[in-house]
């Protein structure tokens, strides 16, 4: 009898609710029953309410069970899980789960399907196609393909990737760098982490392609220290890639070289800002640099550097493999391709939802996400991380599109969507935005360093009912100063969540009470 193939994710989030214990139990309980099992530790499918999700291979694809706890594995095997038999935890064929079926997975196409560190799995599922194609192209052609795809930086700013690459390509230098920003510090975002843990070769391939495009032979991945599993997996992937000749002096047997190094941060949100990240890579305090010069002209160690987010570089691999046209066909207006939305916080069905731009915020939160986890009404949704706006349900008709969000003083950012139910006190969320900025400011410019501290103080006075009108005016004035006077997005965008609370949830500032600390 062939061994049953069983998948249990190795993703840190799946492990955080017991995937390792489940994997051990599968092996142990199957052995106790004389059944042969081949255990694959895949990435997560990104349906976290179902984790740990166990899948069993059948001739008709995989069948899913979840959420499984280690204690029920014996029962599941007795009920016939290894032969895909029905059970109350059986979810049917994985691909038919509506949360997955509704998605268009390009960047996350392999995540959850393959063993993330298997080169055989990677190649058998479309890996290296993009890189092979890029090796046959002129640098200019690669840049043009990325430009034509309409890809915009997925880190949050949404700057056209092709323009950034062209700037680096045209910058004359004997030494250039590719720097991947994997300092995914925004609350509500975890797509970079999942990708690095679930399909690290995809990112690696994108970085080599970026190198070929702009003439760089050295790359750095900067991963935040809060992601130890991602760093471990990425390091292993880099080693394997060298062993297989995907990296090194002769990429895939060509005359092109590319070396890739992993660097781990040390606990500083600001290092997600590209110039602060470059400072950190150079071995300095993560203090931001004034721009210009742009990093594409004068970046790491003063050399032309392409700084891109994990998802941007991963998308490039797909664009090269499937063609710029195919990518551009997806999406709306100037937001092309897919975005990896992350449904987080107080949400019933939290996880990864990759789809073309254009569906509405309400569809994502209510239909896909199923509303709140607590079952209470949704009150606010913070989109785009700690520097993003709090959006009320009255704005749920907003399409997920860079410009549509910008038009109402909000942003899509890195695609994180954090849901709050009606028990939230929005004045405290506004206060936290300032508190977070005060905590994480690099200190270089005054509007951010001092403004955030004053912001907390003035919000405390408003909440306490002290000279409310005058202090609200002062807060608005402060927000304006931070927006206009800050050197980077940290101070420049902190007012966004604050102002959104003032605009959409002013009633929360109208109750007098002491501030709970």
């Amino acid at each position, binding site marked *: 009898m062939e061994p049953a193939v069983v998948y249990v994710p190795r993703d*840190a*989030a799946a*492990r*955080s*609710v017991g995937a390792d214990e489940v994997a051990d139990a599968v092996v142990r309980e199957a052995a106790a029953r004389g059944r042969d099992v081949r255990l694959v530790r895949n990435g997560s499918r990104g349906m*976290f*309410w179902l*984790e740990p999700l166990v899948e069993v291979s059948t001739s008709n694809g995989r069948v899913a069970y979840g959420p499984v706890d280690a204690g029920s594995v014996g029962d599941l095997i007795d009920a016939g899980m290894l032969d895909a038999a029905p059970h109350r935890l059986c979810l049917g064929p994985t691909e038919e789960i509506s949360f997955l079926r509704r998605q268009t997975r390009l960047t996350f196409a392999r995540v959850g399907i393959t063993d993330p560190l298997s080169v055989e799995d990677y190649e058998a599922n479309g890996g290296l196609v993009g890189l092979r194609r890029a090796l046959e192209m002129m640098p200019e052609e690669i840049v043009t393909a990325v430009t034509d795809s309409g890809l915009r930086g997925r880190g949050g700013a949404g700057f056209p990737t092709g323009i950034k690459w062209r700037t680096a390509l045209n910058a004359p230098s004997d030494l250039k760098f590719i720097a991947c920003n994997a300092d*995914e*510090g*925004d*609350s*509500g*975002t*975890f797509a970079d*982490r999942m990708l690095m843990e679930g399909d690290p070769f995809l990112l690696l391939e994108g970085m080599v392609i970026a190198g070929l495009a702009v003439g760089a032979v050295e790359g750095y991945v900067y991963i935040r*220290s*809060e*992601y*130890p*599993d991602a760093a471990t997996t990425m390091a292993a992937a880099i080693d394997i890639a060298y062993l297989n000749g995907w990296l090194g002096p002769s990429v895939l047997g060509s005359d092109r070289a590319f070396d890739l*190094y992993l*660097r*781990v*941060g*040390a*606990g*500083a*949100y600001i290092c997600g800002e590209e110039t602060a990240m470059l400072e*950190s*890579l*150079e*071995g*300095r*305090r*993560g*203090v931001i640099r004034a721009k210009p010069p742009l990093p594409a002209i004068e970046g790491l*160690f003063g050399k032309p550097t392409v700084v891109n987010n994990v998802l941007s570089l991963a998308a490039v691999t797909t664009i090269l493999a499937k063609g710029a046209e195919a990518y551009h066909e997806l999406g709306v207006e100037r937001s092309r391709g897919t975005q990896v939305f*992350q*449904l*987080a*916080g*107080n*949400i019933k069905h*939290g*996880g990864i939802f990759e789809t073309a731009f254009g569906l509405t915020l309400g569809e994502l939160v209510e239909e896909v996400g199923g509303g709140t*986890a607590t079952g209470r009404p949704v009150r606010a949704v*913070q989109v785009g991380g*700690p520097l993003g706006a709090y959006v009320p349900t009255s704005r749920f008709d907003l399409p997920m599109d860079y410009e549509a969000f910008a038009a109402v003083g909000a942003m899509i950012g890195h695609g*994180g969507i*954090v*849901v*709050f*139910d009606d028990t*939230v006190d929005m004045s405290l*969320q506004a206060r*936290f935005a300032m508190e*977070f900025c005060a*905590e*994480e400011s690099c200190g270089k410019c005054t509007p951010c360093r001092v403004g955030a501290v004053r912001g907390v103080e003035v919000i405390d006075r408003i909440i306490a009912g002290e000279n409310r009108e005058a202090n609200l005016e002062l807060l608005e004035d402060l927000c304006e100063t931070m927006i206009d006077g800050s050197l980077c997005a940290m101070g420049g965008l902190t007012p966004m969540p604050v102002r959104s609370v003032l605009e959409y949830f002013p009633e929360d500032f109208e109750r007098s009470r002491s501030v709970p600390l």
Partner: protein
Amino acid sequence: MVSKTTSSHVPWSEERALALVERHREERGPLMPILRELQEVFGHIDPRAVDVVAEALNLSKAEVYGVITFYKDFRSEPPGASLIQVCRAEACQSMGAERLARHAREHLGVEFGGTTPDGAITLEQVFCLGNCALSPAVMVDGRLKGRVDEARFDELVADARGQAT
């Protein structure tokens, strides 16, 4: 009571520190990898390491010290045997992280950044662990935990104490 060193950490050795620095010296921008590894090996960055690193990399002590103090991960004092980090960012807030944060401080009797008097546990706050669909999240010695309520937190603390003895 003197706080004990975690079994995985070794006592300060200039020789060992120098060897470590030497291994990274040829890298571009070697300071961060060196500081990270010093902390991994010794559990914290001993003030004596500042001299060693500054001299080896031809930096001023102020520059090295400035980098160490900028990043939250770097510590100049030995931590407790276990490090517990409680996420206080927005996604976790939406699921009761502030309640958990209060409970954690009360249960352990220390503020964030503090170590229990028996040296067993250092408690820290952290802003986002990337487990935002399974909030509230906690990290124990680099291992991510999800859906941590007060009872689960107490279990994690008990486990951490159990492993330390």
